[in-house]
């Protein structure tokens, strides 16, 4: 089945683990891993596409987000990733993730703090976690894992561990995800990519 799909051989390293930011049931038929940069316009466009895929597949899809900040060309990407991680520490990773993609043009420190306020985060705690070296290490670990997995640009997607080489557009992506979901007959609880 996968021969007809634009999927490379499985190369995701490491596989999806509990430490990852995941949306959707762990037992979903398809796990979509996205390596992205909050300041990258292509990732911003892909964000809408992936949201459409989530709506189309419902509980058949689990989305995992990993950071891949391109610091050379996107000076705010690393700070935005740290802001998302600090929000995640208070259980608000996905709302912050959505907000950052929707407001890519404004990712200065003041903007990030404003988004944190809008999400009713504990700002003192958020600032403290932002400043922790462990937070940056977490982002850089994602970056390193992306490089090991063969990520060369953003956004890069992995479907059940195999790199997706098709267009990141609504039709082709949902088509590929649905075909993989149908090929995965039995969704197992806790299925890992």
């Amino acid at each position, binding site marked *: 089945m996968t021969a007809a*799909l*634009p999927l490379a051989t499985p190369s995701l390293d490491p596989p999806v683990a509990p430490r990852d930011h995941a949306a959707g049931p762990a037992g979903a038929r398809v796990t979509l891993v996205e390596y992205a940069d909050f300041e990258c316009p*292509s990732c911003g466009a892909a964000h809408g596409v992936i949201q459409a895929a989530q709506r189309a597949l419902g509980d058949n899809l689990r989305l995992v987000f990993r950071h891949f900040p391109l610091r*050379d*060309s996107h000076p705010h990407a690393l700070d935005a990733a740290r802001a998302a991680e600090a929000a995640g520490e208070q259980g608000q990773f996905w709302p912050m993730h959505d907000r950052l993609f929707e407001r890519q043009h404004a990712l200065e420190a003041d903007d990030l703090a404003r988004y944190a306020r809008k999400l009713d985060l504990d700002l003192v705690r958020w600032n403290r976690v932002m400043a922790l070296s462990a937070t940056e290490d977490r982002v850089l670990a994602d970056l390193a894992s992306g490089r090991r997995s063969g990520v060369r*640009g953003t956004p890069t997607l992995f479907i059940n561990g195999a790199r997706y*080489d098709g267009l990141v*557009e609504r039709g082709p992506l949902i*088509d590929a995800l649905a075909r993989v*979901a149908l090929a995965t007959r039995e969704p197992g609880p806790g299925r890992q990519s």
Partner: protein
Amino acid sequence: MTAKSSSSPTARGVVREIGRYTVVRLVVYYLLAGGLLLLLSAMFPEHRPSGPGPGAPMPSTMGGMLDWFRGEVALFPNGAPRWIDALFQMVGAVVLVIPLAFSYVRTRTRVKYDHSLVQTVIELPVVVTAILVVVRDSLALAFSLAGIVAAVRFRNNLKESGDAVYIFGAIGIGFASGIHALSVAAVLSIVFVVVELSLWKFNFSADFERTFARLCLPSGADMAWVPEPVETPPEKSATSAPDGKTTRLRVYVDRADAARPLIEAVLARDAKRWSFEAEEPPANGNATVLAYQVRPRKSVGLDGLRSNLLREGAPHVVAADDAPGL
């Protein structure tokens, strides 16, 4: 992801060609305009020509020959009257601004084209030249003019911010003409047209990522790190029928015969209107796509209908998308 996006023609954009006819016409126009203006400047000199005057023998040096030519063709041996001089400067301004209008027409699309701007660009240098001719070296007149300009207020929105450059270009040509610097006006006209057509042809800086990489990253940096733009297809207009309430729903199933009764039971309950449209058989894989025209009940909504399809259609239904197919 970047590699495949780059192969998309929509991501690359169309190739822009200035066109041989445009280039040839511009070159010929500038040559003719240059000849015409040189002749007119000799015929209507502002001041008394410095040459030997009509009937004098032709000198042997190039500079002397030019002075001799001026003296031969000058219609006003003591310098042209002021009104003729002003007319000549205005004609010169119009002649030199026409390539700007040409360039504007060449570089704009039908949507961005503004015919009033073309007319403005051609007329503006005439007015500016006239103002400069009137003001000349008079400080008092200049202040009077400033007072008059301050009293006149008008506002107009340009279709494109780049259109303002044409206005400034026309003003620059008018200024140069008004102070008897037609050679400067000619240089401005030529440089403006060359730069504008070049920027348009190469669509300079349209793609932020690539421009940034070219200008700000070390030379030879791996361009694969620069992401390609991803085109997101329009959503509502492509999927909704003209009434705006009916949606084309594509349902991915494993077996149409098993899935259709389940899907249609949900539609019968949750949709105000629905009709089966087509079955796309498995192409190279396992999925069959069933297409329906659906108008969900208000109380359920499209998202609710989709959730019910996924839940009640399981395990045969795996996705329901309201976007057009491949």
